[in-house]
């Protein structure tokens, strides 16, 4: 088993941390995992992304050209990763930040209003966790509880009081995505 995930968005949307949470959950599940950020000039304003690879074996390339899984938290990332996603793959899109529908019909595009859901929970910064929750519907190797455990296990003590809301964000994202999947004809 090997799966690659790209998470992309504006700097400040929690792209890199979102990827780390998935990486921690995979590691705690006994998987080999790599997390690699874009660290070039683009991290100073503009878009940021990270690639997470999860596998049962020693991971080769930490980068991937056509990932089966991706999260696009803004429109530039939607434009970029809709094009390169592997056929049959799943792209979670932050519907709050895009103004168009999907162009491709050979991939699954799951629209999730991440900003609105996060604001309903009470903190718009939770938007990345909403998206991660949605992604998990297409990543059966990692369960929502695994990510919850990873957050609890690796979040610094000073942030532990934020856990309940993070859990809620994950759950709401997962549930929203589940409903979107239900609309997909079998």
């Amino acid at each position, binding site marked *: 088993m090997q799966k690659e995930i790209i998470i992309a968005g504006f700097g400040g949307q929690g792209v890199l941390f979102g990827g780390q949470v998935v990486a921690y959950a995979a590691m705690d599940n006994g998987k*080999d995992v790599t997390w690699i950020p874009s660290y070039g000039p683009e991290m100073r304003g503009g878009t940021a992304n990270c690639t997470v690879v999860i596998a049962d074996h020693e991971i*080769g390339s930490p980068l991937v050209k056509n990932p089966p899984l991706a999260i696009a938290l803004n429109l530039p990332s939607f434009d970029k990763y809709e094009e390169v996603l592997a056929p049959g793959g799943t792209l979670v899109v932050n519907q709050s930040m895009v103004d168009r529908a999907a162009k491709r019909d050979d991939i699954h595009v799951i629209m999730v209003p991440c900003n609105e859901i996060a604001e309903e929970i009470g903190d718009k910064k939770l938007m990345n966790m909403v998206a991660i929750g949605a992604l998990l519907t297409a990543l059966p190797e990692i369960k929502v509880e695994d990510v919850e455990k990873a957050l609890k296990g*690796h979040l610094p003590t000073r942030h532990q009081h934020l856990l309940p809301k993070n859990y809620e964000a994950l759950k709401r994202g997962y549930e929203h995505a589940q409903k979107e999947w239900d609309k997909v004809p079998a």
Partner: protein
Amino acid sequence: MPKELWKGNEAIAEAAVRAGLEAYFGYPITPQTEVLEYLSRRMPELGRAFVQAESELGAINMVYGAACTGVRVMSSSSSPGVSLMMEGLSYIAGTEIPAVLVNVMRGGPGLGNIAPAQGDYYQAVRGGGHGDYPRIVLAPASVQEAIDLTALSFDLAEKYRMITMLILDGSTGQMMEPAEMPAMQEIKRKNFEWATNGAMNRERRILSSIYLNPLDEEKTNLRLLTRWQDVQANEVRYKEYFLEDAQFIVIGFGTAGRVALSAVREARAQGIKVGLLRPITVSPFPYEALEQLTGQAEAFLVTEMNTGQMLDDVMLTVRGRKPVEFYGRPGGVVPFPDEILNEIKRIAAGPVPVHSNPRVSWLHRATAHA
């Protein structure tokens, strides 16, 4: 100890601390800065020496001074910064004292860019500084390997009174992977018979790289070479993947090696009998392992993130007995596995001629597509 998610640069810093690093001197440069940043916090916490020098020249000469006292000392930088250190490195080599230097390589030449590259292989392996001196060069391909080789580099430097360099590229420095950190070692200052660590109640010692009499300098050169024979005999390290029945053999170090692993797995899935040799010590180079494989292989593919530098070491071993092909992405570009897979398929489809210069034939292919 349980595995934790470590970033390559920070993992190297912590591994050095746990191996007994007593003094660090450096200067910030992307994509290496986290080594320095981490140690700026960690070293003072432990009462150990950390200096952000005024420049890389300052840093390497501080390393030179501290190394003379026999404590574990290190610097780190990235390509342009390492170039600045070359004079000091030659002096350290000429003085025959142990020191560890980490190069988190980026795109070059010149100011280049901050993207991952392997263009400093020649500089690290063949010399860089002036004069005739050997040096140990380790090329980790993962965070765990970076940790293990950092610890090893101090042992090797001391054992052979030699510079040990770690060369990795920016992506290994920036990447996070699960890794196990070794336990904290107590600092055990060894009583080196050469260390200038205070001459109270003993005869004074002099450490220098000056031998004004050429015959003395010649003797020094021969001593260094003799020591290098021991290194070559005892310290070669490499990792083999799917080589038992391999007809085609890919060779790559560091990130190029691990990207090749993905390509080799995919080629195997498609029924091509291909394996991978990943040198971990690029100096000493695993000549003997490659010599063994030269009998077995129908053809070799060398893959690097440069225009073909380790390629020379492969060709020195294979010596025209089998075809050697090359695929490179220089300038800060990391190849994707499918690029290497396409090369494997091209070579497996054969026939592959024995080129006098695989670099040139690769250049023709590379520029024909552009």
